[in-house]
Structures are given as C-alpha cells and as structure tokens.
C-alpha cells in the first residue's frame, strides 16, 4: 500500500447558476497575460452543448486520455513512446486557434476621443493576436444557454447514446432543459498529460497531488495538450510553453481556497483531502467502462481505518493531513454518501474532481407545462426526467445508468425527507419509503441537507495543511529557485524565446 494524499474537489451541479464568476475570478488572477488571453483554466459550459474548446469530449477527434490495449495494458490514446517523437514536428491531435477562439478586446479609446459627429461613438472589437479590427465569430462560452440549438447543442458527443426519439424529446421547445458544467483541471490521479510529456516537465506534487508544469523544463512539444482528454492544458502562444490550472497553490499554501472556489456565488464547490492507494491506480483504470466508477472508489482509502492511518504514516503523510482527510467534505460526498461522480471516467485518468449530478431538471415534469399539485409526485419521477438518465450517465459514469439513478434517488429522497420533516406536507410513510429506496437513513439525509444547503466556508473548504514553509523546507533551496518548480514562478518577465 502506497498511501498518497490528494487535494480533491466536489462541484454540486444542482447549485450552479452558470454565472461565470469563477471563470472571471480565475482570468483576473492568472490568465490576464499576453498569450494567455484565450485560456480559461476555469470555464462553465452549458450541457447539452459543445463546450470549450469545441467538442472537447470527442476523443475520436482529439485522442485524449488512456485506452486499454488488446493485452489489457493501459496505453495513451494519442501516442506511443516512439511516435511521440514524430509528433514533435506536427501534432495532428492538437486543437488550433479555430477550436478555441481569436481573443479580442475593444478599442476603448474611440469612446473618449471621437471626432464630432452625428453618431454615438462605439468601441470596435480588435484582435488581441494581430491588433487589427475583427469580426467576433466565437468565444469561450459561445453556446451559453443555447441548449436545443441545432448548431451547438445537437452536436454534443454525449447525445450519441440517446435514441432519436429521446433526442427529439430533449430538444422539443417547451421541454428544453439544460445544466451547467463548470470545469477546471481535474488534477487526476492517473494523469495522461504527465505520461505524455516528452520533457518530463509536468508532475504531480507529492504532498497534495496538484498537477503542475515546470515552465523551466517545458520545451513546448505540446504532447500534453493532445493527451489531456479534458483539454485543460493550454498553449501560451507568446512564451511557447504549456500552461494549466495550478489549483491556486499559492493560495492553498496560505490556507485560502482557490480563487474560483472562493468567488463561487452558488457555493457549489467543496474542497478536501482524499487518501488513495497509488499502487492500485493503474490496475483500477483497466476496469471495463461500466465498472470504472466503482474501481475508482475502491482505490480511495478510508482515513479512519487504522490500517490506512498506519500506511499513511509510513508514506510520510503528516498527522495534520490525516486529520484534515477525516473531516473532508469530499470524502463524504464521494464515498460516504456516494453522491459525487467523476466526469467522463471512461477517459481513465482517474479525475480528482467529482460532480454531484443535477436533480433540478427533473422538477416541473408533472403536467403539460404546468407543475403538478400531487404532493406525492412533487418532484416527479426520475424515469421521466427532462435530462435523460442515459445522458447523465454518458457524462458521469461511463454509461452506467444504474449508478446515476442511484444518485438521483438519493437526492430526491433527501428532499422528500426534509419536506416531510420541516413542512410536514409529505406523508412520513412516503418519506420513509423514499429513503429506503435510496438506501439512506434519516440522519444521513439530514447531514446531506446540511452540507448542501447550510454549509459555511469552513465546512465547504477543509483546506490541506500544506504550508509554503513546508513546501520549501529543503536547506539551501532559495524561494525564488523553488518557485520555478511550481507552475508560473517567473522571476523575470517571460518573453518569447528570450
């Protein structure tokens, strides 16, 4: 047993309102630089939709993540060790500018000093690439709220699992539904970007599992961009290096939640420590698609188990980290209640960001465009959900519909139980039946309710006790030198090739 600690995350999609505050916070802190304008380390997508970069989930096109070969071994989809060298000159799987968008700003000066005239002055858009006037044709959330649109949402690769009938129903104008999917780097336990990097610049930080790119070692070969199935590594076209979400490690090291977590309006984000067995990761990721979520859960270790504690101590995990792991809200969502699922586990990178799938679109299913009044069916039936279970399963459980239905039953049961308790307009018998069906106890339902609805900042973010001092305690390691080892620690203004 090789116990590792991982800073893991849960995003509760029922609470996401799609406001993009997280994206803006991240942009202002990290990617407001030349060459990084188009990077959205944090972005929010509308589902069904094509996402950012366009159709990133389509691995037939992008070849990201891992596959299991004929001999049952885990292999990168994008390259073998030898053809990685051929792809240095031209990588057929790397998305180009047209898969993202041409970044732009506005000619704001035109508003302040225009010639006297009959018309209102306008600020025209200018390209941040060429500095010339441009026509804006795409953006990072271009299909925001455009579920049902034939040019965007219909191309969502996850819809391929649905029958034509299901698709037609999903996009019927009055039944249109959608959900928001905020995405950051998953800081995977089995990262394909790390395995694909020819220079060995990308690494997983041992203490907390954050995946970082050493900018001094990166040579801009771009294999990581092709290898990451979530397309969460971006190429800085000015410096010629790859960049990615650093989980705001400078904030984490000072005990603060990352900028996107901290600014989240809907309070959908949870951060906590998970323990996992690094030795089992590879074999777990060789499981068949439908068993991947269970295999991933089996790798996670219970921080209260004495054997695990002993193993963790042997692996050099500090007592403070163990204590944090025992209070982790992520452990509760992922393992204790089994509510949170990984996004696209079939990419086999073992993402460490988990999502509680949204129940909300189930509601309002009752009448013909009219909410039903039958209290027993207040929340509708999961089988008749607006967002088909198959679609959610394609996103969160590699097609295992049972898993998603189980989660939905739990989410529904918590609501019914709390309704019965607080308002008493649902019969106790109905509540008890719902809980039994969902395999929950009354106490668990109340705990889920509390952590979902009444949580304050300290309950949501149980920060790992990784301190800057600890990260740099090596004798003779100068802080400025060590900074270079962690993502973006420039000690001089980065210039292209100089």
């Amino acid at each position, binding site marked *: 047993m090789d116990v590792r600690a991982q800073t893991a995350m849960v995003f509760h999609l029922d609470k996401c309102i799609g406001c993009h505050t997280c994206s803006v916070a991240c942009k202002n802190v990290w990617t407001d630089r030349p060459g990084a304008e188009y990077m959205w380390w944090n972005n929010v997508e509308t589902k069904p939709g094509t996402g950012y970069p366009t159709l990133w989930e389509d691995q037939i096109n992008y070849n990201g993540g891992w596959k299991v070969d004929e001999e049952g071994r885990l292999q990168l989809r994008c390259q073998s060790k030898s053809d990685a*060298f051929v792809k240095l000159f031209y990588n057929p799987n790397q998305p180009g500018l047209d898969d993202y968008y041409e970044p732009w700003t506005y000619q704001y000066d035109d508003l302040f000093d225009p010639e006297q005239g009959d018309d209102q002055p306008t600020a025209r858009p200018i390209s941040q690439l*060429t500095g010339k006037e441009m026509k804006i044709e795409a953006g990072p959330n271009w299909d925001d709220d455009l579920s049902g649109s034939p040019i965007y949402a219909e191309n969502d690769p996850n819809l391929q699992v649905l029958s034509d009938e299901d698709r037609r129903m999903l996009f019927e104008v009055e039944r249109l539904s959608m959900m928001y999917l905020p995405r950051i780097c998953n800081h995977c336990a089995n990262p394909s970007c790390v395995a694909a990097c020819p220079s*060995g610049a990308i690494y997983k930080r*041992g*203490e907390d599992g954050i995946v970082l790119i050493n900018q001094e070692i990166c040579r801009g070969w771009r294999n990581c961009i092709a290898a990451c199935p979530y397309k969460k590594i971006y190429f800085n076209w000015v410096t010629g290096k790859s960049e990615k979400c650093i989980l705001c490690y400078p904030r984490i090291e000072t005990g603060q939640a990352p900028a996107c977590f901290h600014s989240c309006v809907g309070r959908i984000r949870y951060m906590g420590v998970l323990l996992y067995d690094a030795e089992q990761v590879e074999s777990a990721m060789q499981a068949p698609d439908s068993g991947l979520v269970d295999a991933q859960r089996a790798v996670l270790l219970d921080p209260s188990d004495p054997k695990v504690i002993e193993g963790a101590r042997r692996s*050099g995990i500090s007592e403070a980290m163990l204590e944090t792991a025992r209070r982790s809200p992520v452990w509760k969502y992922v393992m204790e209640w089994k509510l949170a699922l990984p996004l696209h586990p079939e990419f086999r990178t073992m993402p460490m960001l988990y999502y509680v799938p949204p129940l909300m679109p189930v509601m309002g299913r009752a009448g013909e465009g009219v909410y039903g009044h039958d209290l027993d069916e207040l929340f509708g039936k999961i089988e008749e959900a607006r967002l088909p279970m198959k679609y959610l399963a394609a996103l969160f459980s590699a097609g295992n519909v049972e898993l998603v239905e189980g989660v939905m039953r739990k989410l529904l049961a918590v609501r019914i139980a709390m309704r019965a308790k607080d308002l008493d307009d649902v019969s106790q018998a109905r509540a008890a039946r719902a809980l039994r069906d969902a395999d929950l106890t009354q106490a668990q339902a109340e705990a889920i309710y509390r952590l979902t609805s009444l949580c304050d900042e300290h309950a949501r973010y149980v920060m790992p006790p990784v301190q800057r001092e600890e990260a740099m305690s090596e004798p003779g390691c100068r802080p400025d030198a060590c900074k270079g080892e962690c993502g973006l620690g420039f000690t001089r203004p980065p210039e*292209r090739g*100089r």
Partner: protein
Amino acid sequence: MTALDPFLFLGLPYLALTLLVVGSIWRFRTNRFSYSALSSQFLERRQLLWGSAPWHIGLFIVLVGHLIPLLAPGFWKALVSHPAMLLAIETIGVAAGMMALAGLLVLTARRVFSGPLQRITTVMDLVILGLLILQVALGLAVALNHRWGAQWSVGTLVPYLRGLFTLRPDMELVIALPPLVKLHVVGAFVIIALIPFSRLVHAFSLPVAYLWRPPQKVVWNNPRRWAVQPRSVRELEEGRRLFLRGVGATATAGLLMGVGVADKLVRFFSGPRMEHEEEIAMLRKKLERLEQTAEGRELELERKRKEFIHVAALAELNGSDGKYFIDYEMRPALAFKDGDGLPLLISAKCTHLGCTVAGRVDPQGRILCPCHISYFDIATGRPNPGSPAKAPLPHIGWALLDPSGAVIAQKAPGGPVEGEVTPDRLQGAQVYIAKRFAEEGRA
C-alpha cells in the same frame, strides 16, 4: 587563396564551435526558460504540416548523410566505392535536400503571409530561415554541379573537418575547392554560430529520456518525505531496474575496455617474451632491414652523383602515354615524345598537394591529377583555369646519348636544344636526365 580564407576556414569554424558550446551552456544556465520549440502550430496548423514535416525529415536525412563520413570515413569510402551505392546515396541526398528546401519555403511563406504569425515572428527567426534556405540551396547546387560529392569529399572536406576536431586543421584541403563548396562550408559555420542565439537551440532539447522514463512523475518538495518514502514503490522499482540496466551496461563496457587497456599496459611494460632463437632471428631480420635501407641510401646517393641517369630509349617514348621515371630529387616524373621527335620530360608531382599525375594525355594535350581534378597542359605545364592547382608543372632538362655514351643533344628546362639533331644520329639514342640541369632547376 584570398586574404579572407584563413579567417573563413580556420577562424570562423573555431569561433562558431566555441560560440555553440559556450553560448548554449550560458543560455541554459542563465535563462533556461527560453529553451523552447516555440511551436506556432496553435496559431496556424494547415500549412505547418507541409512545412515542418518535410523540413525536419529532409534535414534529418541530410545531416545523417553528412555525419557518417565524418565519424566513419573508412566505412563511408567503402560504401561509396560501389557505383550503384554511390548513385543511390547521391539520389537520396538530393531528394532529401529538395524536401527540406520545399519545407523551408512553405515555413517562410506562412511566416510572411499569416497575420497572427507575424506577431510572434522575430527578426532572428527570419534571419535563420533565410540562412537555412541559402544553405540548403547551396548544398543542392553543390550536389548537382559537382557530382559525386559523397566520393570526392572523402579526400577533401572530411579530412578538413576531422582536422578541425583533432586540432590539426588543414585549410589547404578546402581553399582549392570550387566556390559553391566553400560557401556551403562557411554557411554551415555561420548557422552553427547562431544556434545559441536563436530558436535553433530547441534541437538540444530532443527528449530522448522520454523513451525510458516511467509514465508518471511525482515531485516531493518536502525532504522529510524523501527520507520516509522517496517515491512510490512501483516507480522506485522501475527506476531501480532502469538504473541497474544502465549501470550493468556501462560496467560491462568499462570492464571490456579496462581489460584491453590493462592487457596492453602489461605487454608494454613486460616487453616481448621470446626464446633466444626467436630473439636472434628477430635481431637478424632487423639488421637485414637496416642494411637494406643503407644500401638503398647508398644507391640513391650514387645515382645522384652520376652525371646522367637513364630514362628510356628514345624509341620507347610516344606522345600519348607517358613513361614514369624518378628524377634527381626522387620525385616522380613523366617522359613523352614531343611533336618534333625529341623527348619531353615533365614533373609528375602535382603542384597542389603532391599527388602523382596520371600518364595518359587527353585529346587537348593535358594530363590529369586525379586527386582534385587538375588538368595540366604538357606543352606548357600550366593547369587549366579554375583547377585546384595553381602553379605549372616544371619541365625537366634532358640529354640524348648515343650507344657509345657521347652526347648527341641536350636541353635545359626552358632552354633551346643544343646539338645537331638528324634522324640518323637519333638512331638508337637513349634519353637521360642530366645532373647539371637538375642543379640549375633547383637554383
């Protein structure tokens, strides 16, 4: 030779190599961040495929073709001695060169015409592209104008370049070559000098370690953890296996080399071990060889002391196929019969690098030095214009003796024929070289 040659072929190469080594290390140590492939695929990818791929593949083939003769000239010489192989190598080289040139032209076009790319294109990028185009074009021009470079370079460029690395550079080997070849050599060193100051440094970043490194990489910042568990067990095992394999291979190679060196050392210090009889035989053989040498020297001296040295009978000589002989300075020379029926003697030691000139006269009345293709007119001794050799081959004076030993006629180099020459007097005449002409020629 021009005044610039010593700089271009001695100074520049060492300057370029010094800049390459010192500059690259300096840049790596002071600004490691700037080492990058500086890919522009993100901004423009359609034309890149047709530029980058042919350029890099063509360049790789051409570089390999340049490096093998440098590293293994013997092997290369044997390889190109077969005409079919030579043809194949030259064809592959020219094809790869054209591929590289086409790639470069596409790369340059996209730099110039793509708006986003202009933003990230530096002056140095354009300089490098221009130099590379020039260099590849020159290489192709050499291959097409001076055919069979794979063969002739073995005697000229290869020893020159090897001389640079063994610190015994001999620029004589290149300065006589055609201007296209010289420009190609200079271009190569200019590009080498610019590597540390341009995007070309990415060539040093070729990530070969990727072939054997474990797929996952974990970095622990906290040394307390290194003591407890440096890395995961699996990575550790994998690393240990690779390390052991490397150490094993190195150790085996080292051991074999060590055994060889030790064996030589032991033999050197213990001296040869042999029976008395063997030793006597060896010493006798040595003595015999020394005597032979002394005899040879004596003969040489005796020959030089002679007033006349016999070359051939006049009747044996003709105007198209020279007869080799050795002159007073022990140098090779050729004897012909001139148009007037008298002998024509000319030195056969090429004035360029001293090869022996071939004896057959071509229709233009010239003889060829095969080493670097210089044609010498036998009437005047002068080389053809543009040939590597610049000085004419000197004529040698002769004397005609009748069978009784009396001088019939003689001619000093450049002088008139002295003596009466009639066909009946030439009957049975023998051609000699004369000591006094040799001494005059030396003076």
